[in-house]
């Protein structure tokens, strides 16, 4: 895979003239980095290009298809009562797979609670993601196993953790980079603004990847901002780029360039992946109350998976056997997830008191003992 970017080749400390020019140009009509059109046509971009083998293209397609299948299965499991809640990523597969595949194993990822596609790219077991939605834990995986932090529910908080982690990378003299995920709603949070400030001041190797999926539950992006979100970066002194978030090639190229830029000491960058939340905010949400079907139909025509399939077929990167095998693999993944979730055990009662402190705490010990004695009293009564 080769990714080329003039932004990566000609980096400038604390922001680039190119970014400034782009921002100025964008004031009228925002420039969208796109390498694959909704019709499945490859297009050139002056700053970013990508050259992938057939196998790599098939790999991206497979990632997106399996992620969507997993996501659909999780929604079904919620409807069947196996999960308490699910936050679907439907429609955002390209943004997540493109950016996720741009990361190196030694990079570190700070997700929201919707980054199932990124988790997939990082090698996190998909069933691990379901524990918190089933209510058996609050995350529970080891973040250091795949350099993929726990899902963060409070909006925008993780942008600061990502920035601090990136500051640590600089102190270590390492050439890893960090990517912080958040959404259009989070862009209004103070923590995101503070993360921008800290990242800029310390020139931290962090990429801010904002998936603008147009809706923060019921509030459209217009309720969060008067300017295109990527332009916010300029005020902090680092580049901002808007990329077609439904174009996996553009997301991969731009994120890889931004990460490379970060790891070579050129500091942070903001990527606004312009995409669409095709489903509800979560399974508890009812989008018919606040948005029109026509809007969804408009975005259906820009589907990230369909456009890559068109390319694969037209340029002969994949044959029918590939698509058929992938369908089988997706069904197997779904079955695996379904089986694992249904047999996921509830935690032991005493787990309430586990891992609150690393070094222990007298009150926790006391209450644990009281609780155990209380539980034991029922066993005695039954004798």
């Amino acid at each position: 895979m080769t990714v080329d970017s003039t932004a990566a080749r000609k980096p400038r400390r604390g922001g680039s003239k190119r970014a400034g020019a782009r921002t100025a140009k964008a004031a009228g009509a925002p420039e969208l980095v796109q390498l694959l059109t909704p019709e499945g046509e490859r297009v050139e971009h002056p700053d970013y290009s990508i050259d992938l083998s057939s196998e790599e293209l098939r790999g991206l397609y497979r990632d997106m298809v399996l992620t969507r299948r997993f996501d659909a299965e999780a929604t079904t499991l919620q409807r069947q009562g196996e999960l308490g809640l699910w936050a679907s990523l439907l429609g955002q597969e390209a943004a997540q797979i493109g950016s996720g595949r741009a990361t190196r194993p030694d990079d570190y990822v700070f997700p929201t609670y919707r980054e199932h596609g990124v988790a997939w790219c990082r090698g996190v077991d998909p069933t691990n993601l379901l524990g918190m939605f089933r209510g058996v834990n609050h995350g529970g995986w080891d973040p250091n196993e795949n350099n993929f932090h726990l899902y963060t529910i409070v909006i925008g908080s993780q942008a600061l953790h990502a920035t601090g982690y990136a500051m640590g990378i600089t102190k270590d003299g390492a050439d890893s980079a960090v990517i912080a995920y958040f959404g259009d709603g989070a862009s209004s949070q103070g923590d995101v603004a503070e993360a921008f400030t800290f990242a800029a001041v310390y020139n931290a190797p962090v990429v801010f990847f904002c998936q603008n999926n147009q809706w923060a539950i019921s509030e459209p992006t217009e309720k969060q901002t008067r300017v295109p979100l990527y332009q916010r970066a300029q005020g902090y002194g680092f580049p901002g780029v808007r990329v077609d978030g439904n174009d996996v090639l553009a997301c991969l190229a731009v994120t890889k360039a931004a990460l490379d830029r970060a790891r070579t000491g050129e500091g942070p960058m903001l990527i606004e992946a312009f995409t669409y939340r095709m489903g509800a905010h979560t399974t508890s949400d009812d989008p018919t109350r606040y948005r029109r079907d026509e809007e969804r139909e408009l975005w259906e025509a820009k589907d990230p998976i369909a456009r890559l399939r068109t390319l694969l077929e037209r340029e002969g990167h994949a044959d029918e056997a590939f698509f058929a095998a992938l369908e089988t693999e997706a069904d197997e993944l779904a079955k695996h997830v379904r089986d694992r979730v249904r047999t996921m055990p509830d935690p032991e009662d005493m787990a309430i008191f586990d891992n609150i402190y690393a070094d222990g705490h007298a009150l926790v010990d006391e209450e644990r003992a009281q609780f155990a004695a209380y539980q034991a009293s029922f066993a005695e009564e039954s004798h």
Partner: protein
Amino acid sequence: MTAQKLSVVKAINASLRTALENDPKVLVMGEDVGKLGGVFRVTDGLQKDFGEDRVIDTPLAESGIVGTAIGLALRGYRPVVEIQFDGFVFPAYDQIVTQLAKMHARALGKIKLPVVIRIPYGGAIGAVEHHSESPETLFAHVAGLKVVSPSNASDAYWMLQQAIQSDDPVIYFEPKRRYHDKSELDTEAIPGPLHAARVARPGTDLTLAAYGPMVKTCLEAAAAAEEEGKSLEVLDLRSMSPIDFDGIQASVERTRRLVVVHEAPVFLGTGAEIAARITERCFYHLEAPVLRVGGYHAPYPPSRLEDEYLPGLDRVLDAVDRALAY
């Protein structure tokens, strides 16, 4: 440096210096902690000796300070952050309560968050609004955090060493009105447990339990009471989470009376919790209800009224008299 008389400020400074020397992963960060040495000069000279990479002047953003400290801890660092004043901690409260306190549990113990948050706290310095508050209960109420406060130079030094060595987040409240009080510090001593109460003055008739700035007030009250023939025990609690209930119980079983003193409002304060638990543990030992002396359920007043708002010698002795009258 072994045994010497040192101010609380200098003891904290020495403790930070020791930690920076002993462990390359220790970082000091906060507003004005670098060249200025902090508004109270607690970090004086540290940046000069350890460099800007380890003693870090941060942007003026408390949530950012704690949030990035969390990220640094995840990377393997041990950040010691300074919040400039008690009343300025609230922009960081979300990061402390929602993220810092819970992350170890959310990861089922697979990651640790060794972050120390130093906060100068308490009143009686004639300051403007938001510079005199005692918000310790708001942190002690949160599982996942540990909350401590030293009352003298030796504890200031050693408790900070132990807080930095702890793998848990520790909120370290500094009694700012006692910053310049000098007392004995032996940097080669073997310190006791971080969360154990200490008998600051033995007595037989009543226990005064306090921490941080109120320990000195209670010692003065005990000295005054002695002149009236009353023997008061002063217990320096040192830790508000966990609270050494065993230590308090042992004292109360000897003295049979307890008055808890803190600057923070009495309502739902540390004293309320101690009163409830000690009543439960020592019901048949108590000769009087547990009494509390503290701030009122009112915003911290303008400084010309703070002597009336804060527990002083007379209010402590008034509570002692009431407890002894039962």
